[in-house]
């Protein structure tokens, strides 16, 4: 009898522990191979994990944990001694950034945006004049550490070195479009994690936001290259997993620009990829309404 009671108590305690503490588990690569173009020097090829696509481009209200349950809402803002709100550097469990009251442009005064040519478009047309942009055409999670593509006062730096300069309250990253053709999704995730680690080391107090990869138009997707929305969905699922492991914020900006079918509207980009100004502004609106404070 006593043994039975003890067993019941132990089972109950195990159940409570499972609810409040999720142990980290490494992502195991899937089986099979995918011939989708080559990443220089990589011999690996495997599929990555994939979440249902409807979670990748669904409106915010359909994202996991975005319902009205108070326990899923963002914690109260952390205030400085002067009373102004600062961004919490790390999520409290749920990494997906939920819809919030819109912040104004000043919220991005201490923001750093890291990315490829799409982020260059954000700099050009997004109206975030006081934010900092470290963006370069063709930038990948690999060349972020190896290519001196960022010009600061006439000197060239890699992104990893550039991010050590200055002080930022939040760092937004959007990479992956140029890596869609890599054989190894594991390498993509590994290099992305290394970039996050470098950002955290350089800016320990900054909140890190990983932005989902924006979709392409259906026309572009149907061309038959590795730049297609199915591949983008797969990569975004990997990014969400990564964010949960690394405890960085995941902001699904793709939902801010896609149409009902979850793709980029045909009039959004001349080449199906690079957003026209009107859609860049939609991207910014999504960022303004999905900000952690």
């Amino acid at each position, binding site marked *: 009898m006593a043994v039975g009671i003890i067993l019941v108590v132990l089972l109950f305690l195990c159940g409570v522990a499972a609810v409040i503490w999720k142990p980290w588990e490494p992502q195991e690569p899937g089986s099979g191979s995918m011939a989708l173009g080559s990443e220089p020097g990589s011999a690996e090829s495997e599929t990555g994990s994939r979440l249902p696509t409807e979670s990748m481009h669904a409106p915010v209200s359909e994202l996991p944990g975005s319902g009205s349950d108070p326990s899923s809402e963002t914690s109260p803002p952390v205030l400085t001694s002067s009373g102004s709100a600062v961004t919490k550097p790390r999520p409290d469990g749920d990494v997906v950034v939920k819809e919030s009251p819109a912040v104004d442009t000043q919220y991005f005064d201490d923001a750093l945006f890291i990315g490829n*040519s799409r982020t260059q478009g954000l700099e*050009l047309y997004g109206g975030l004049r006081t934010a900092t942009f470290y963006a370069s*055409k*063709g930038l990948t999670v690999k060349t972020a550490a190896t290519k001196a593509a960022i010009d600061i006062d006439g000197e060239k730096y890699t992104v990893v070195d550039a991010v050590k300069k200055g002080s930022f309250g939040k760092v937004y990253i959007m990479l992956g479009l140029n890596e869609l053709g890599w054989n190894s999704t594991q390498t993509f995730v590994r290099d992305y994690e290394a970039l996050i680690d470098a950002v955290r080391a350089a800016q320990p107090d900054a909140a890190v936001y990983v932005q989902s990869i924006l979709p392409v138009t259906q026309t572009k997707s149907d061309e038959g290259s590795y730049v297609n929305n199915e591949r983008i969905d797969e990569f975004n699922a990997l990014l969400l997993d990564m964010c949960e492991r690394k405890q960085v914020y995941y902001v699904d900006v793709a939902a801010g620009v896609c149409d009902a079918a979850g793709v980029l509207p045909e009039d959004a980009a*001349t080449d199906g990829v*690079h957003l*026209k*100004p009107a859609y860049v502004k939609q991207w910014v609106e999504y960022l303004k309404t999905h900000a952690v404070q």
Partner: protein
Amino acid sequence: MKRRLAAGLAALAIMVMALAGCQEAQVQLDAAQAADAILSAVSFEDEMTAVDADMRDTLYGTSASDIANAKVYVSTGATAEEIAVFEAVDEAAAGRIAEAVDKRLEQQRLDYEDYAPAEMPKLNDPALVKEGKYILLCVSNDKAAAMQKINELLGK
């Protein structure tokens, strides 16, 4: 007789020099209108959008104090197409702006060489004219139309 001839030749020389000076002084451009005119005259593949002065100086590394008037159109990034028309405050500033334009083109070539090699022909052979205080640039696949419009704007 000789004195009259010498005086006449001197007067003629002065007239020629004065007329030459007048010809240069007649080149007056409104940089913004010129950029708009080039936009209308040239065929572009991409959507072109004008950027504000701050972004212009960020892209080109120019100093606002060197610029009397300017307008820059850029593309979405899908292409390297671009229009830039500058009126400098003086000749020295024009030299600095011209250098900045050359640097911009060089950086664009480096960026697009591996990223989008199809853009290299237009970057390697842009319509680029420097005339006095004015620098006019048009990067497109329609150089002939761009040059025709630029020459027309400069009164050539």
